[in-house]
C-alpha cells in the first residue's frame, strides 16, 4: 500500500483531474461546466479505452458501444422506470460489464486488424439492432419528461449534480487506469502487448487477462453514457453508437501518449480544447476538420509516442512522476 501512497505519479494524476474538475464548481460558471463536462467525459472514455488499447495492444474501434449501451440501460431505467440516476448508472455499468465480459471472451480470440474490424461490426450490429427494437423506442429513441429533473431540485441542480457524479467517475476511471498499469496484472497486459505468444509461454493467462481488461474498460463508459443522456434529456441510436466517437477516443490516446496513465487525460483535454477552439475560431471555422486532420497526421509522423510519451523519452527524470 505504502508504495502507492508515496508514488508522486498517483498524486499528480489525481490532482490534475481534481483541480481541473473542481474548477467549474469554484467559479460556478455554467459554460466552464459544460466545457469540462465534455472534457471529463472524453477523459473517461479515453482512459478506459487505453486499458485495452494502450496496455493490452488491442485496437478497439467499438469502445463507444459500452457508452451507448450504458446510456440506453440507464436512460431507460430513469425515464421509463423512474429510477434515480445513481442506481440507474450502477445498473447500466453492471449490465455493460457483463456484456463486455461475454463479448470479450468471444472476440478477443482475434488479433490485429481482425479484432479491430470485429469491434466495428459489433458496434454497428448493436446500433442497428436498437434501431429496430421498439421497446426502447427504435429509431425514435426515448425522451425524458422535464419534470423528472425536479427530483434533483430543478434542472439547474440536476446539471450540477450530473457534473459532480461525472467528476467522481472520471477520477475513479483514471485511478483504475493507474492501478491497472502499476499492478502485476497490468504487467501481464503489457507482456501481451509486446508479444502475446511469449506471454503465454511465460505463464500469463492471456485469454483471461485480456477479457478482464476488456470488462474493466467497460465499467465507466457505461456510467458516463447514463450521465450524458440523463443530462441530454433524450437518447437516440445515432447519438449513442457514433463510431466516429470511438475513433476520436483513439486519436486522443495517441495525442496524449499510448499506454500511459496521464496520456489519455492530456490527450482528451487537448483534443477537446483544440476542436472547441477551431470550431469557434473565425479563421479555421470552415476548415477545422481538415486542419485537425493535418495536425493528427503531423503528430503520428513526428511525435508517435504522444505528448506524455515524448516527455518521458525526452526527460527521463519526468518518468517518476508521469506514469
Amino acid at each position, binding site marked *: 500500500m505504502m508504495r502507492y501512497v508515496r508514488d508522486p505519479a498517483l498524486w499528480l494524476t489525481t*490532482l490534475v483531474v481534481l483541480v481541473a474538475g473542481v474548477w467549474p464548481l469554484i467559479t460556478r460558471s455554467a*459554460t466552464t461546466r459544460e466545457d469540462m463536462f465534455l472534457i471529463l467525459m472524453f477523459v473517461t472514455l479515453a482512459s478506459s479505452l487505453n486499458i485495452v488499447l494502450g496496455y493490452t495492444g488491442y485496437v478497439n474501434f467499438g469502445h463507444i458501444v459500452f457508452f451507448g449501451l450504458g446510456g440506453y440501460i440507464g436512460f431507460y431505467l430513469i425515464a421509463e422506470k423512474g429510477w434515480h440516476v445513481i442506481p440507474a448508472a450502477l445498473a447500466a455499468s453492471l449490465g455493460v460489464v457483463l456484456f463486455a465480459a461475454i463479448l470479450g471472451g468471444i472476440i478477443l480470440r482475434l488479433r490485429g486488424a481482425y479484432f479491430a474490424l470485429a469491434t466495428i461490426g459489433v458496434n454497428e450490429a448493436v446500433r442497428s439492432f436498437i434501431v429496430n427494437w421498439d421497446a426502447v423506442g427504435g429509431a425514435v429513441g426515448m425522451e425524458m419528461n*422535464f419534470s423528472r429533473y425536479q427530483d434533483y431540485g430543478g434542472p439547474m441542480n440536476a446539471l450540477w449534480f450530473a457534473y459532480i457524479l461525472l467528476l467522481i467517475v472520471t477520477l475513479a476511471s483514471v485511478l483504475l487506469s493507474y492501478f491497472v498499469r502499476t499492478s502485476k496484472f497490468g504487467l501481464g497486459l503489457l507482456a501481451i502487448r509486446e508479444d502475446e505468444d511469449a506471454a503465454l509461454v511465460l505463464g500469463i493467462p492471456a485469454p483471461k487477462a485480456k477479457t478482464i481488461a476488456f470488462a474493466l474498460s467497460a465499467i465507466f463508459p457505461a456510467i458516463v453514457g447514463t450521465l450524458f443522456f440523463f443530462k441530454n434529456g433524450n437518447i437516440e441510436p445515432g447519438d449513442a453508437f457514433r463510431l466516429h466517437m470511438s475513433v476520436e477516443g483513439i486519436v486522443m490516446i495517441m495525442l496524449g501518449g499510448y499506454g500511459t496513465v496521464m496520456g489519455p487525460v492530456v490527450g482528451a483535454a487537448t483534443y477537446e480544447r483544440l476542436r472547441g477552439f477551431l470550431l469557434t475560431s473565425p479563421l479555421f471555422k470552415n476548415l477545422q476538420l481538415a486542419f485537425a486532420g493535418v495536425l493528427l497526421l503531423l503528430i503520428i509522423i513526428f511525435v508517435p509516442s504522444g505528448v506524455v510519451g515524448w516527455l518521458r523519452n525526452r526527460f527521463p527524470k519526468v518518468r517518476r512522476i508521469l506514469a
Partner: protein
Amino acid sequence: MKGMRLFVTVLFILALIVTGCSKATPTPAPQPTKAEAAPAQQQAPEAKAKTLVLGFTASQTGKYAKESKEQTQGIQLWLKDLEKKGGLKLSDGTVVNFKVKYYDDESTKERVQQLYTKLITEDGADLLISPYSSGLTAAAAVIAEQYGKIMITTGAASDSIYKQGYKRVYQIYTPASRYLTGAVDALKAWDPNAKKVAVVYEKSKFATGVAKAVKAYAEKQGLEVVLFEGYEAGTTDFNPFINKIEAAKPDAIIGGGHFQDGSTFAKQLYEKKTPVKMVAILVAPAVPEFAELGDAAVGVIGPSQWESIAKYSPESAKAAGLTWCGPTIEEFVSGYKEAYGYEPGYHAAGGYAAGLVLERAIKMADSTDPDAITKALDAMDVMIFFGHIKFDTGEAHGLQIGHDMVYLQWQKKDGKVVREIVWPEAAKTADAIYPLER
C-alpha cells in the same frame, strides 16, 4: 526536494492544459444599455435603445449543413429587415435591436448542448432559436428550458419535444404528426377507389414519427396499409425494397425521410417504373435540387412547410379572421433573392418566420421581459407570410397548431420540371397529375 519542485511544475502545466484558458469571468447579465441611439431614432430624443442577444447554433458542417445554412440565412435576412426599419419600437419609446450570435454545432448533440449553454451564460443570449433538425432541437430545448429561456424552434417538426413539459419552447413548423396526413386526404379526394397504401419511411426520429401518424390516419380514413416498413438511414439501394413494395400492390406510396434517401428512392421508383398511382414523400421534393432528377421528379408529391407560390396574404388573413403581420410573400422572396441570389425554400422561410414571431411577440408584449413575451407567444394567433401561427397551450405546450402543410407536385411544363401546389384545394396552383403515368 528537487523532485517536489518538478512535481509541482508538471502539475501546474498539466492543470493548465486540462482547464485550458477557460475564462472564469462571470458574464454580467446584459444591462439595458443606454447606448448610442441609432441615427434613425434621432427624432425621438427620449428614445432608449435596448439590444437583445439572439443565440442559436447552425450546422455549418456535418449532415445538416445544407438545410441549416438556408435557415440561418433566413434568420439573418429577418434581422437585416428589422435593422432597416430601425429596430423594434415599443410604446414607451424603447427601441429594441438584436445582436445575433451563433456557432457551428457540427450536426452533433454534444456540441449543441455545450454551445447553447455558452450562448446563454457567456454570450448572455436573451432569446434563442433552435438548430436545424428535430434531434438537435431536442437537445437544445433541454438547455433552453433549464435556463428558462424562450426558444423558437424551426426546422424541427418532431412532436415529442412538446410532450416533455417544456414551458418556453415554441414550434414554428407543422408538427410531424400532421406532415403527411394531407396526402391521405388528397388521395381520397382524387380517387375514391384507392384502397391500399404503402407507408415506407427512413428509420430516423422525424420520419418514423411522421410515418406512424400517417398510418394511423390512413387506417382511420378506411384505407388499408398494405406495407408499413422503415429502412435504415443512409440506404442508397432501394431496388430490393421496391420489389417488395411492388409485390404488395399499393395504390399509393407514402413516406420517405430526408433529402438524400428521398431523392434516391424517387429516382429508383422511376427507373423501375413501379406501377403506383401516387408517390408522396417527405422533405426531398420540397428541396429545389430535387429538380436535378429530371423526369424522375415528375409527378412526385411532397409536403412543404411553405412555398413561395403559396397564397397567404393580408387578404386571406382577413378572410380567416386573423391579424396579418410582417412582409408579404413577394417581399420576402424578392428580399431573399436580392441578398443571396436565389429563391428561398421553406428552410429559409422557417428561419425568417422564427425571427418574425419573436419580433411580433415582443411587440405584443410591449416589453422585453421574458414572462411577458411568453404570455404573448401563448396568446399569439396571427397570419404571416409563412402561414397561420398559433401554439398549443395545453398538454403539448408550444406545439404548432395553426400552421398547415401545402403539398406540391413536380410537373413538366414546356420541357422544364416545375413545382406546383396541388393540395389543399384552396391553395392549389395547378391540377394534380393523378394517376402517375409511367
